[in-house]
C-alpha cells in the first residue's frame, strides 16, 4: 500500500474569511453617506479635498512600503485610504491643496509608518495629521466657507459673515457660541445641525444623520462595538446638561453639543480605530468617558472651539496603560475568588 505525501500546516485548518482588507473597506463604505452630503453641501471643493487627502495617503504609504523593501501593493489594503478619507473629512472645505498634502504626509509617514505600518501606531494617524495642521496652519484651518443654500447669506447665527476671495466664510456653530454666546444662542436651529444643511464646519462633520447611518452599518457588521461611542457621547451629554442647567445663557443646550462639531464623527469613526483604542470592553468604556470629558472641557473652557481631536489623541496615549490595568480575570477566576 504505497503511501502518499501531503502538505502539513498548523491547526486550525479553517478560517472565517475575515480580512483586514474587508474591514477597512467596510469602514470606508460607512463614510460614503457623510461624503455624499459634504459633496452636495460644499460642491467641487469637497471633492478636491477628499481626493487629494486620500490619494496622497495611499501614495505616501506606497512610498514607505517601497523604502522598507516590502510589497508596495499592500498600500491598497484600505487602511491608508481610510486614514486619508478621515483626514479629509475633518478639514475645512476651503483648505489649499499643499496643506492637505502635508497633512497626509504627517498622518501616514510620521504617525504610522515611522512606528512600523499598520497595527503599530500608538496615535490615530488621521487625527495626528489634523491636529498638526490645526496648530501649524491655524488661520486657513479655521476659515469655514458657507455651504450650499446659504452661500450668499449676510450673517449666520446673528454674526456677520466675512467675504474672502473665493467664498463667504462664517464661524462654525461651536465657535459662534463660544465667543458670542448671548447673540448666537437664540438662533441655533437643532435640526439644521442634525441634517447638516446650512451649517458650516469640516467637510465630514456637518451631517449627523449621514454619520449615524454609516455608524449603524458598522455596528450591524460588528466592526465596532457600542462601548466607546456610547460612553463618549453620554459623558458629553451629561456634563453639557449640568453646565446648561447651571447657567443656560452661557452654556448651550446639551443636544447642541451632541450635534455640533466633530463629536459624532470622532466618537464613531476616530475613537473606535482598533489600533489606537483599548481592546477590553472595560477599557473601552474608560477610554470613551475620558474622550468625552476632555472634549467638553476643552469646548467649554479651553482655547480651541473643538476639543474632540485633542481628546482622542490624549486618550490614545493612555491606551497602553488602560490595556495594562483593565484585563478581566480568566475563565474560572470567579471560583478561585469564592474558594479563597
Amino acid at each position, binding site marked *: *500500500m504505497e*503511501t*502518499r*505525501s*501531503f*502538505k*502539513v*500546516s*498548523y*491547526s*486550525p*485548518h*479553517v*478560517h*472565517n474569511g*475575515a*480580512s*483586514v482588507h*474587508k*474591514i477597512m473597506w467596510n469602514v470606508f463604505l460607512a463614510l460614503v453617506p457623510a461624503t455624499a452630503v459634504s459633496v452636495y453641501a460644499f460642491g467641487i471643493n469637497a471633492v478636491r479635498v477628499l481626493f487629494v487627502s486620500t490619494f496622497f495617503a495611499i501614495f505616501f504609504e506606497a512610498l514607505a512600503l517601497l523604502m522598507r523593501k516590502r510589497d508596495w501593493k*499592500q498600500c491598497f*489594503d484600505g*487602511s491608508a485610504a481610510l486614514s486619508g478619507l478621515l483626514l479629509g473629512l475633518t478639514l475645512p472645505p476651503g483648505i489649499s491643496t499643499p496643506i492637505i498634502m502635508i497633512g497626509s504626509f504627517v498622518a501616514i509617514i510620521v504617525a504610522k509608518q515611522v512606528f*512600523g*505600518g*499598520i*497595527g*503599530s501606531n500608538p496615535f490615530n494617524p488621521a487625527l495626528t495629521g489634523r491636529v498638526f495642521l490645526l496648530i501649524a496652519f491655524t488661520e486657513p484651518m479655521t476659515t469655514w466657507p458657507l455651504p450650499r443654500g446659504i452661500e450668499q447669506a449676510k450673517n449666520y447665527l446673528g454674526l456677520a459673515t466675512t467675504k474672502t476671495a473665493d467664498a463667504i466664510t462664517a464661524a462654525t456653530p461651536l465657535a459662534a457660541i463660544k465667543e458670542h454666546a448671548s447673540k448666537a444662542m437664540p438662533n441655533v436651529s437643532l435640526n439644521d445641525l442634525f441634517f447638516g444643511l446650512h451649517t458650516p464646519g469640516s467637510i465630514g462633520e456637518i451631517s449627523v444623520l449621514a454619520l449615524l447611518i454609516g455608524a449603524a452599518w458598522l455596528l450591524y457588521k460588528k466592526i465596532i*462595538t457600542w462601548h466607546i461611542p456610547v460612553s463618549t457621547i453620554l459623558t458629553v451629554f451629561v456634563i453639557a446638561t449640568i453646565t446648561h442647567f447651571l447657567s443656560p445663557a452661557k452654556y448651550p443646550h446639551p443636544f447642541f453639543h451632541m450635534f455640533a462639531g466633530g463629536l459624532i464623527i470622532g466618537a464613531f469613526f476616530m475613537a473606535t480605530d*482598533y*489600533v489606537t*483604542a483599548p*481592546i*477590553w470592553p472595560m477599557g473601552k468604556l474608560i477610554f470613551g468617558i475620558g474622550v468625552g470629558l476632555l472634549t467638553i472641557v476643552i469646548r467649554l473652557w479651553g482655547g480651541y472651539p473643538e476639543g474632540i481631536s485633542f481628546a482622542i489623541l490624549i486618550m490614545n496615549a493612555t491606551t497602553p496603560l488602560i*490595556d495594562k490595568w483593565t*484585563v*478581566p*480575570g*480568566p*475563565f*474560572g*477566576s*470567579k*471560583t*478561585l475568588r469564592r*474558594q479563597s
Partner: protein
Amino acid sequence: MSGIKSFNGGIHPAYNKDLTSGSETVLMPAPERLVVPVGQHIGAPANPVVKKGDIVKLGQMIAEPGGFVSSPVHSPVSGKVISVQPEEHPMGSRIMAITIENDGEDTMVEHQTISEPLEKDPDELKEIVKNSGIVGMGGATFPSHVKLSPPADKPIDFIILNGAECEPYLTADHRLMLENPESIVSGLEIISHITGVKKLYIGIEINKPDAIKKITKALGKKGTVVPLAVKYPQGAEKQLIKAVTGREVPPKHLPMEVGAIVFNVATAHAINKAVTEGIPLFERIVTVTGHGVQKPGNFLVRTGTMVSEVVDFSGGYTDDAAQLILGGPMMGKSSATDGVPVIKGTGGILVLPSAEMLTDAWGPCIRCGMCLRACPNQQNPQLLGNLIEKGLFDKITEDKLEEIVLDDCFECGSCTFVCPANRPIVQFFHMAKAYFRAQKRK
C-alpha cells in the same frame, strides 16, 4: 436561545456535518498487516510484552502500562508479531510499535463477561476498565481508570457525558449515539456505580436532534439530557461543565476541582463493552470526510489499521486532495503521510482539497479584539501572540503570563479562526510552550 445552555466566547465555523451524519457506520475488516503503537494515550507509553515471532490472539495484551497514568495496548487481530521497532506515529515522531500480521481467524483470547455489572464491587469494575486499556475517546486520550479514581478530598457531584462533538465535519459520536444508545447509558451507569455519583448528565448539541431523542429515551429517569447551543468549542471539558452545571473550573485546575467528571460518549460505550462483554478497546468509529475523499462515511476501524487503507476502503482520494488531517479541522493534526496507523484518539480522517487550504500569508495584528471575544478561556491571545511573535519570552515570564501559555490554553484554535490578519496564534502558543518546557528542563 432560551433554555439552550452554553458558555461565552467561542465561534461558529461551517460545520459540514451533513457530509457524513446520514451514513450508517460500516464495519471495516482488519487488513493483513497492522502497526499498533505503544503510545496511544496521555501518560507513560506502554512497554511491549511480546517479541518478534510470537503468536497473539484477538484482544490479548501486547503492551503493559508504563506507570499509574498509562494504559495497556491490546492486539486488534489474531496473528503473528512481525516486528517490534519504532514506526511512524500520527503525532509526527517515531514511536515504538508492534507490527502484527493478521491470520484472519480473529480467535478471541479467553475473556469473562458480566451480565449484572451493577452488582459487582466498584473496585473490581475499575480494574477491568484499567486492564481493558480504556482511554478518553474525545481526542484527549486520558486513561479512564485515573479519572475514575479522584482523590478522596475532592467530592464529585456530577458525571457528564460529552455528546457535543463540536468539531466541524466529525460525526463519529453522533452515529454512535444513534446506533447504540443503550450501551452508552449502561456505560454511564457503570461509571456512576464505580464512582458512587448519582447526578448524571449527557450534553448533546441541538444540531443532533435525532441523537437527543434516542438518548433521552434510553436514559429515561436515570439522568438528564442537556441540549447545548451549537458553538465551538462546546465539547471542551471546561466549557461543557460551565454549560451543564454553570460552574467554572479555575485556571490550572482539573474538572474535579468543581466536583465534575467528564467522559466522552464513546468512552462510556467502550467501558460498557469492556465490562459486560469483556472486549478491550482495540476498535473505534472513525469519520472519513472532507471534499478530498470520493465517498465520505463513518467506519468501525481497528486501531493499528493504516490511514491509507481506511481511505482506500472508503473509496480513495479525489485527485486534488492536498491536506490530510487526523481529527477535526480545528484541533486536528495535519500529517505529512497517510502511512500512519489509526490510534485510540483518532476521531476522524479529514482530507481537504488544495482549494480549501488556508493561505499562509499573515500580517501584523491590528488589535481588533475579535480573538479576545472568541477565546473560550477569556485569555489574551492578542497580547501573547504579539509577544511570542517578537520573541519577547522574558517579558512573558516577567508579567506572569507563563502559566496561561503552558496550562490554560488548550489550543482550540478559535482565535486563529477569527483573526482578520490571518495570524497563526495557535502556532505561536505551541512554539512558546515548547520554549518554556525546554527552559524548565535546562
